[in-house]
């Protein structure tokens, strides 16, 4: 039987999604449905003096109006920060309370004040206008780099500082800097982004007063985590009385990893009114209240020798957490960022210092790449600047500093198990025809355009994660993954995974793995996920973890099935177990023609006795049935890496910048389904190029979100991109039996520096992200002036 691993299998999940038969949360409507509309703060920072709901309560169709007082009276717990970070001085991080409905103060535009529940959405929305809120408006803290010098938003959090964290050794790094021939310095802003999954967040909670059970449909990347948080921390219902279903989910990119206030409120309200409560965000609500991404202000320095050898690296970053510490908000700028700050290089000494601040803006949390794009942007911009200042080719300086022996103990945390960074960069130069760049540049010049080329070599730590490691670093949960492989009596298979697919194609990739492992045809395997009542607890999908961690759990469960199958087949064939081999779905007795298919063995496991022609007594001590569970906790992270080369054309008269050529060569270890992996790279690149050229979340000085619709926030469109050239190298991961490394975030990590290095190469000076036409035009003007002066 040909192996399915490595095949471009068309996706099993596509037909329902292509024919309008998908089921997203907003598509679910219950009998006796009610509709929720949230009253949100129009102010970035204010005291709540009074919330008068009396008029709204009497409005047509209104079932209930609930406020922060109600939620406090019912002792519903607040939203949580999932990762405890300690400051350099050993003190614990400081986080404010985060009630699902505000009680005393509101802290960003869009913060939740009250919920109106009515018979129809129109009635809920109309009644929300009648809720009269008396705000005492306070001066908002908005800017990341000014937060520590501003008035404290929370009285027990001085300087608005959540933590002041250090990774690495300042003294040792300074020693390295003292020996440097040259120190390259850079100041960067990693622009704030809004994730913008196309499906707006939604929740529909249905409480059954007879069974006291809540069924919550929600747009989640991680329904099991939603259940444990809403149960154990918010205290809405015991875990066994809360079923969370994340059906088809329309993209997440990090913004749907954890439950938000709305899921908590809908679940609690459903219990209160004993009717189902449905909420669907409109797009502006999504802009205002989905967690945002990035938002770093960084000063970094690289110490180099004149021959281009790196000696040391310093990074001082201020990271904006927004108004509250979200679930992964505190780990994103620390352990997901700091260890990758030295990039893909040998770096004898380094430190990374991050000050995380609160501001009156929406909470910031993990967004595709989470910490690693920020780290990669910093080091890769510095490296390119170093190459320019030393007069070296950007490829040459990188290769000079790549590690060549693996496992590679990276400077700050990670032991990287495998990689071949030279091979990746060389292949990228080949695929992208780097040699031909000068000729293409001349051609662009003949059209009056400036052409630039930019590199990015990256590595990242994903496949999160080893539980022992992350828990020792402050993570409040383990990060293993579960799988249950269930043979049905008639020989087909259902595989339950604790991870969640919201576009990644698990139904297909995971079925390919199980089909190969069990020798069962692909069409006889169903993958089940997204429902806490089906399959064991799991940790969901983010951090490019599903395949390396969740896929491995499937492999291990399949191996247990085969191990039991061997015993049963041996009994059926009346031979010793050691004489039975398993291959391509058959248990075969060596050197004979005796065999049993895995389907026959499964059938026997469910009919363990003699019935007419069926003779299938189980071996002594074996239980009936054929179902195995595995919980896999990896020994290490996985470390995808690669080199990307971008070419841009700039029109100096308008500043318009176009990506005209983009080459990505990535090492994701073993690839199960190239069709899906290529799609993941394309999507990541679009978001990375989006950050570099188009996307920017902008709050004005009073904390109003100026970019709160698709008319103001530039989403990349089809006509913004060229056709991407992809290539792959492969050094299998050693930390999982599949050899996979994760591919979902690479594009978003590598593209911003590749694009920005190309822009800077084209215009000859630094430009900040996003490199809008206005900024690039101004940079061109500045360079024209300085060129003419020089002339």
């Amino acid at each position, binding site marked *: 039987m040909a192996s399915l691993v490595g095949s471009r299998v*068309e*996706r099993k*999940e*596509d*037909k329902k*999604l*292509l*024919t*309008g*038969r*998908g*089921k*997203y949360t*907003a*598509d679910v409507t219950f009998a006796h449905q009610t509709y929720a509309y949230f009253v949100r703060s129009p102010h970035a920072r204010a005291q709540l003096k009074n919330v008068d709901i009396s008029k709204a309560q009497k409005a047509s169709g209104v079932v209930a109006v609930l406020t922060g007082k109600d939620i406090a009276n019912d002792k519903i717990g607040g939203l949580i920060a999932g990762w405890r970070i300690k400051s350099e001085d050993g003190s614990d991080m400081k986080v404010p309370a985060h009630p699902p409905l505000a009680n005393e103060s509101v802290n960003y535009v869009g913060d939740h004040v009250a919920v109106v529940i009515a018979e129809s959405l129109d009635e809920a929305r109309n009644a929300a206008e009648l809720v009269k809120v008396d705000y005492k408006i306070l001066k908002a803290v908005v800017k990341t780099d000014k937060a520590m010098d501003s008035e404290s938003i929370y009285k027990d959090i001085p300087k608005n500082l959540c933590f002041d964290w250090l990774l690495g050794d300042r003294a040792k790094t300074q020693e390295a800097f003292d020996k440097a021939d040259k120190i390259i310095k850079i100041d960067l802003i990693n622009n704030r982004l809004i994730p*913008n*999954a*196309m*499906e*707006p967040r939604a929740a529909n909670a249905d409480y059954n007063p007879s069974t006291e059970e809540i069924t919550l449909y929600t747009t989640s990347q991680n329904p099991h985590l939603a259940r444990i948080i809403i149960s154990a921390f918010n205290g809405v219902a015991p875990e066994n009385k809360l079923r969370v279903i994340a059906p*088809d*989910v*329309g*993209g997440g*990119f990090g913004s749907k990893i954890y439950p938000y206030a709305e899921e908590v409120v809908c679940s609690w309200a459903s219990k209160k009114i004993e009717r189902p409560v449905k909420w669907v965000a*409109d*797009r*502006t609500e999504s802009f205002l209240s989905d967690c945002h991404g990035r938002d770093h202000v960084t000063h970094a320095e690289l110490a180099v020798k004149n021959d281009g050898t790196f000696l040391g690296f310093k990074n001082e970053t201020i990271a904006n957490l927004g108004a509250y510490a979200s679930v992964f908000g505190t780990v994103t700028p620390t352990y997901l960022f700091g260890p990758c700050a030295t990039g893909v290089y040998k770096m004898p000494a380094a430190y990374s210092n991050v000050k995380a601040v609160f501001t009156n803006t929406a909470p910031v949390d993990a967004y595709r790449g989470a910490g690693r794009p920020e780290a990669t942007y910093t080091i890769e911009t510095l490296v390119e600047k170093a190459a320019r200042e030393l007069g070296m080719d950007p490829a040459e300086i990188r290769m000079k500093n790549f590690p060549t022996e693996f496992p590679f103990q990276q400077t700050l945390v990670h032991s990287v198990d495998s990689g071949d960074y030279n091979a990746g960069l060389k292949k990228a130069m080949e695929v992208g025809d780097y040699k031909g760049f000068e000729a293409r540049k001349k051609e662009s010049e003949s059209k009056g355009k400036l052409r630039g080329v930019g590199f990015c070599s990256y590595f990242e730590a994903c496949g999160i994660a080893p539980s022992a490691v992350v828990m020792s670093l402050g993570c409040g949960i383990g990060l293993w993954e579960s799988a249950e492989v269930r043979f049905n009596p008639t020989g087909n298979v259902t595989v339950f995974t604790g991870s969640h697919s*919201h*576009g*990644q*194609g698990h139904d297909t990739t995971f079925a390919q793995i199980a089909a190969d492992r069990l020798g069962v045809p692909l069409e006889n395997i169903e993958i089940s996920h997204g429902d806490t009542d089906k399959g064991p607890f799991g940790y969901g999908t983010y951090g490019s973890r599903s395949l390396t961690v969740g896929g491995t759990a499937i492999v291990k469960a399949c191996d247990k099935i085969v191990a039991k199958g061997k015993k049963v087949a041996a009994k059926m064939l009346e031979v010793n177990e050691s004489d039975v081999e398993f291959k391509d779905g058959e248990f075969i007795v060596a050197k004979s023609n005796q065999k049993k298919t895995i389907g026959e063995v499964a059938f026997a496991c469910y009919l363990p006795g003699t019935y007419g022609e069926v003779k299938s007594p189980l071996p002594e001590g074996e239980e009936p049935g054929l179902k195995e569970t595995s919980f896999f906790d990896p020994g290490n992270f996985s470390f995808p890496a690669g080199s990307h080369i971008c070419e841009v054309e700039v029109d100096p008269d308008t500043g318009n910048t176009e990506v005209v050529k983009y080459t990505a060569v990535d090492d994701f270890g073993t690839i199960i389904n190239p*069709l*899906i992996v*290529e*799609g993941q*790279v*394309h*999507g*990541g*690149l*679009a*978001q990375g190029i989006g950050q570099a050229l188009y996307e920017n979340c902008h709050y004005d000085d009073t904390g109003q979100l100026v970019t709160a*619709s*698709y*008319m103001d926030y530039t*989403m990349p*469109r*089809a*006509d913004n*991109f060229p*056709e*991407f050239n992809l290539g792959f190298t492969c050094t299998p991961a050693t930390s999982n039996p599949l050899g996979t490394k994760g591919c979902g975030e690479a*594009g978003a990590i590598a593209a911003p520096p590749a694009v920005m290095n190309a822009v800077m190469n084209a215009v000859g000076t630094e430009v900040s992200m996003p490199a809008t036409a206005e900024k690039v035009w101004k940079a061109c003007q500045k360079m024209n002036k300085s060129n003419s002066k020089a002339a």
Partner: protein
Amino acid sequence: MKKINLEVNGKKVSKEVADHTVLSVFLREVLNLTGTHVGCDTSQCGACVVHVDGKSIKSCTALAADLDGSKVTTIEGLVKNGKMHPMQEAFKKEHGLQCGFCTPGMVMSAIDLLNHKKNPSDKEIRDWLEGNICRCTGYQNIVAAVKEAATKM
């Protein structure tokens, strides 16, 4: 309220609608045709594109009350005798979708393009789809799917 008579996916429909009910809400909430998605409030994302009298429109921007007598085709109406439309087949073959949320609008829009122009260039496809936002695919395989469908339609 106004009574409207429509043909939706080949079936006659007669309903009372409020004056402010837009077509996307009418399809999703009155007819339970939830294949048409709503991804924004400003007629930008294109997830809600359907065909009215053979032309693609954003259904969030048309009042149902204005469409009396029209023929509407939604994503649910493309399957004929259990077989997907060539555009749907092409999206599957070329991996032109990931989360699937923008896909119904993308498919309806792309079909209208091929109805206008038999063999569009990459640039023409990208320009045409400018009103449909996809956050997952980077558009590359969507372009490939439209080109593939052009060979079959």
